[in-house]
């Protein structure tokens, strides 16, 4: 087998702890406890090895990475390894001193999550009062510090009709970039899928809004529309391919080809406490399992698209069909595509909102509700 190319990016999930409780959170339902988190020296070593492996970009993420008192040291370790750092934060807990310390440590940019432009809707979705106020303050601090600032807004049934207001908010907060990211149905998002799934009408309106606003903005903020899964009959090239572009290190040192891969039951993912990152990337069975196209089953195996979308998402194939080597059911060529169609068809305009569960530590994984909810 040819030697896999080096990874470009590292998603560092420094902790799963978070002051917010977003129902779409992509963290696994079984959140890693704080007592099992890697220590400072281990994270510094992860950054050193990642730099040697070819990683040039890291998202310092979580959970809420500000909950790590050693975030400054981890940032410096990344910077020393030549890795460009972006803090991915809810904004809760950021003050001027902390931001100054992080900037001194080498932090290069900040991505701030916002749940909705309306403060009450924001706080309701985030499951925490006053979180909007904290975000507003955090945005101003990042601006004052002169760091690049992006907003990340996860879109779902509850906020898709209000993206005009989100874009206005980004303009007022003077951000560089707004990422409008349709919910991915992993982790808590899968658990809450029936409540979060938008209607086709909502998505069509939102697409029009983005096109209209893009045409009207002077190039800034940059609007990024992360296409929804499930609706177009096409599989998304998840993570640019399994073990192709990036790797995720979970709070306890588990290394995954994508953050959702923790849900695959027989993957046996390697850990930085047991193996060097170089071995994990190049040699570990977990990273080689779905690399390239050899593992594919039909219809992917003989499909011309297989080197472009890599057969879609393994975690979604597993979640919906029970077999991770199947074609992602989001693809219209998948024999299981009816599973996705029936989900979308059950998502009706004007239906009363369905309940969701906010993410919390200690909630055990449950079976997903199934295609018809």
């Amino acid at each position, binding site marked *: 087998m040819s030697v896999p190319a*080096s990874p*470009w990016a590292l998603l560092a999930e420094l902790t799963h702890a978070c002051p917010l409780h977003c129902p779409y959170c992509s963290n696994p339902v079984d959140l890693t406890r704080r007592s099992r988190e890697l220590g400072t020296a281990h994270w510094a070593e992860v950054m050193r090895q990642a730099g*040697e*492996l*070819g990683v*040039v*970009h890291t998202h310092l993420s979580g959970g809420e990475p500000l909950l790590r008192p050693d975030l400054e040291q981890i940032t410096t370790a990344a910077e020393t390894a*030549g890795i*460009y750092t*972006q803090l991915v934060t809810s904004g809760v807990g950021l003050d001027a001193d902390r931001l100054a310390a992080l900037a001194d440590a080498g932090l*290069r*940019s900040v*991505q701030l999550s916002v749940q909705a432009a309306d403060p009450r809707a924001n706080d309701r979705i985030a499951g925490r009062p006053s979180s909007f106020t904290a975000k507003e303050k955090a945005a101003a601090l990042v601006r004052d510090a*002169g*760091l*690049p600032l*992006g907003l990340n807004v996860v879109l779902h049934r509850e906020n898709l009709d209000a993206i005009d207001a989100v874009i206005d908010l980004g303009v007022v907060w003077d951000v*560089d*970039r707004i990422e409008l990211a349709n919910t991915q149905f992993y982790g808590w998002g899968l658990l809450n899928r029936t409540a979060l799934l938008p209607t086709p009408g909502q998505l069509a309106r939102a697409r029009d809004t983005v096109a209209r606003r893009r045409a009207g903005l002077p190039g800034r903020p*940059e609007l*990024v529309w992360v296409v929804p899964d499930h609706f177009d009959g096409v599989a998304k090239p998840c993570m640019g391919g399994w073990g192709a572009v990036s790797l995720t290190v979970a709070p306890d040192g588990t290394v995954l080809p994508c953050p959702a891969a923790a849900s695959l039951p027989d993957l046996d993912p390697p850990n930085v406490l047991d193996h060097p990152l170089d071995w994990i990337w190049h040699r570990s069975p977990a990273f080689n399992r779905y690399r390239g196209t050899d593992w594919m089953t039909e219809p992917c195996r003989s499909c011309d698209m297989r080197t472009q979308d890599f057969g879609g998402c393994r975690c979604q194939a597993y979640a919906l069909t029970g077999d991770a080597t199947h074609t992602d059911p989001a693809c219209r060529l998948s024999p299981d595509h009816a599973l996705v169609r029936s989900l979308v068809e059950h998502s009706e305009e004007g239906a009363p909102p369905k309940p969701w569960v906010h993410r919390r530590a200690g909630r055990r994984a449950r079976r997903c509700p199934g295609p018809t909810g």
Partner: protein
Amino acid sequence: MSTQPAAADWRPALVPAAVLRHDPVRGADLLLLPERVVVLQGRGEVVVGLCDGTRTVRAIVEELTARFPGAPVADEVPAFLDGLRREGCLR
């Protein structure tokens, strides 16, 4: 859209978010930005290195022409700089 050649008196500079670095693993020169990586081809790194906000495009072209006689500097460099500006790397 036609590619307008960069104005000769523009003084290009990297945007504050951008970091120019050599990548020894890939043997490439990179521009790192918040959500993307631009791989500089050929002598791109030398050109970007001259974008310090004080030199005009005209001066950059003159300097490169002197250093690389015979290279199509005047034809290619203004368009290259414009491309990087469109990508949000230069201002």
